[in-house]
């Protein structure tokens, strides 16, 4: 039996054929290091990297492709956005639904004199953006908000939070790990100053790809975490002070970026609204299917439009890890049990420390996958209720 992959929130799989082809083509026919050397293969590699910036800038409505830097994942992008930006005495606001990719750097910075306020969300993971307003202080430097929870699937009120940040002259950083490629993002309309994204989830790139959009001029306020060779200004020992080189030292993951470019083009060619509709339909069918089982609790908002296709649930009295093993061995369904690197989100939902079962649907899942997943949950539910 073929496996049913329902762990797309961890990384998407399978990838579009174009992604594999692009990576193979790069390795077989190009292989050179971009930004170095100046021979035709190096220049062509540079064009690949620039094309990826252009595609991402178009996807996010960023003013310039050079406003985007590549990182190895969203976590690195969020570390630049926090460790590189914040100083002792700064105050920041975040939500209780955040992933540890933002919580851990912020908790570290707390030990270095940065003040962190966590806005409480509802058990469904929803944040009332007006709850942010009274938390703003004179020294509030930035608001850090996930675009959608990797646990409950809840879409956060990014546009309204961005408007509040702009109104108060505060920087607004969005973690788009779960949403880039899955739902539309417009950094201008949403007032986003920093957008951290990963390449290997809904953008369909390989692991090891990600990036950060920085609003023009903001790069001057942020220190790079890594310094070294960039292929530019080689006569100087000082780190370049311009985008994107300031934040891109060392040989980049060009083969990964070639794959990411193909992934972004796949998203744009398929239409992000079509992807969103397809994935939302799968998730909603699944939720409807398992909600009828007594003793099965589904977390997150009830309305389909308020969530991404990430579904957390529990089967009364059964540990998520036992359930995940059953799904894997009996039904060949790949899921992720536990806390999903987001203990604060689970505390908010009331599922800490046990966690939840998480099934996350992707563009390549079928209606039959959903039916099998419902059947699998149903069998466990029957077993628990015998």
């Amino acid at each position: 039996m073929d496996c049913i992959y329902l762990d797309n929130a961890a990384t998407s799989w399978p990838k579009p054929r174009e992604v594999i082809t692009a990576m193979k083509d790069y390795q077989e026919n190009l292989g050179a290091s971009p930004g170095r050397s100046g021979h035709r293969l190096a220049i062509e590699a540079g064009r690949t990297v620039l094309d990826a910036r252009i595609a991402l800038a178009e996807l996010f409505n960023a003013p310039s492709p050079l406003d985007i830097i590549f990182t190895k994942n969203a976590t690195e992008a969020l570390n630049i956005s926090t460790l590189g930006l914040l100083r002792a005495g700064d105050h920041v606001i975040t939500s209780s639904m955040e992933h540890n990719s933002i919580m851990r750097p912020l908790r570290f910075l707390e030990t270095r004199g940065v003040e962190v306020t966590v806005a409480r969300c509802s058990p469904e993971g929803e944040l009332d953006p007006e709850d942010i307003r009274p938390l703003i202080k004179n020294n509030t430097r930035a608001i850090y908000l996930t675009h959608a929870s990797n646990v409950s699937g809840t879409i956060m009120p990014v546009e309204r939070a961005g408007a509040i940040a702009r109104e108060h002259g505060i920087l607004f950083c969005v973690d788009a790990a779960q949403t880039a490629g899955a739902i539309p993002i417009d950094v201008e309309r949403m007032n986003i100053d920093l957008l951290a994204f990963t390449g290997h989830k809904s953008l369909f790139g390989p692991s090891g790809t990600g990036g950060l959009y920085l609003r023009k001029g903001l790069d001057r306020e942020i220190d790079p975490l890594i310094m070294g060779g960039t292929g530019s200004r080689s006569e100087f020992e000082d780190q370049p002070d311009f985008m994107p080189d300031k934040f891109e030292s060392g040989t980049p993951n060009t083969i990964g970026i070639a794959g990411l470019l193909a992934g972004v083009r796949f998203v744009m060619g398929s239409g992000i609204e079509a992807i969103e509709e397809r994935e939302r339909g799968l998730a909603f069918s699944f939720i409807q299917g398992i909600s009828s089982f007594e003793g099965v609790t589904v977390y997150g908002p009830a309305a389909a439009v308020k969530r991404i296709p990430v579904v957390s649930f529990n089967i009364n009295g059964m540990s998520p890890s036992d359930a995940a093993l059953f799904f894997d061995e009996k039904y060949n369904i790949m899921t992720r049990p536990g806390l999903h690197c987001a203990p604060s989100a689970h505390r908010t939902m009331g599922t800490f420390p046990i966690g939840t079962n998480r099934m996350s649907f992707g563009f390549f899942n079928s209606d039959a996958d959903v039916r099998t997943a419902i059947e699998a949950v149903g069998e466990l539910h029957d077993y628990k209720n015998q």
Partner: protein
Amino acid sequence: MSLMARDYSFLLFKSVSHALSAEIILKRHEIPFKLIPVPKQISSDCGVCIRFSPVDNERITGALSCAVDIDRVVSAGCDTIFS
């Protein structure tokens, strides 16, 4: 053909990303140019630059103005090329 022929001018950029951004714009405008490694006589940078005919100087700077940051223009016959 010598890369250092007196009748060429050169556009230097902060980085290869900028040079390749300029390349896209110049191709769109159908202005002839060549992307080459930065001649060591001009700069010790290890990147690439754009070599072009001085007759296209105005068209090139016009096409790139406000679109790409140009670090330096080295005009044809400039002493730095031949020193």
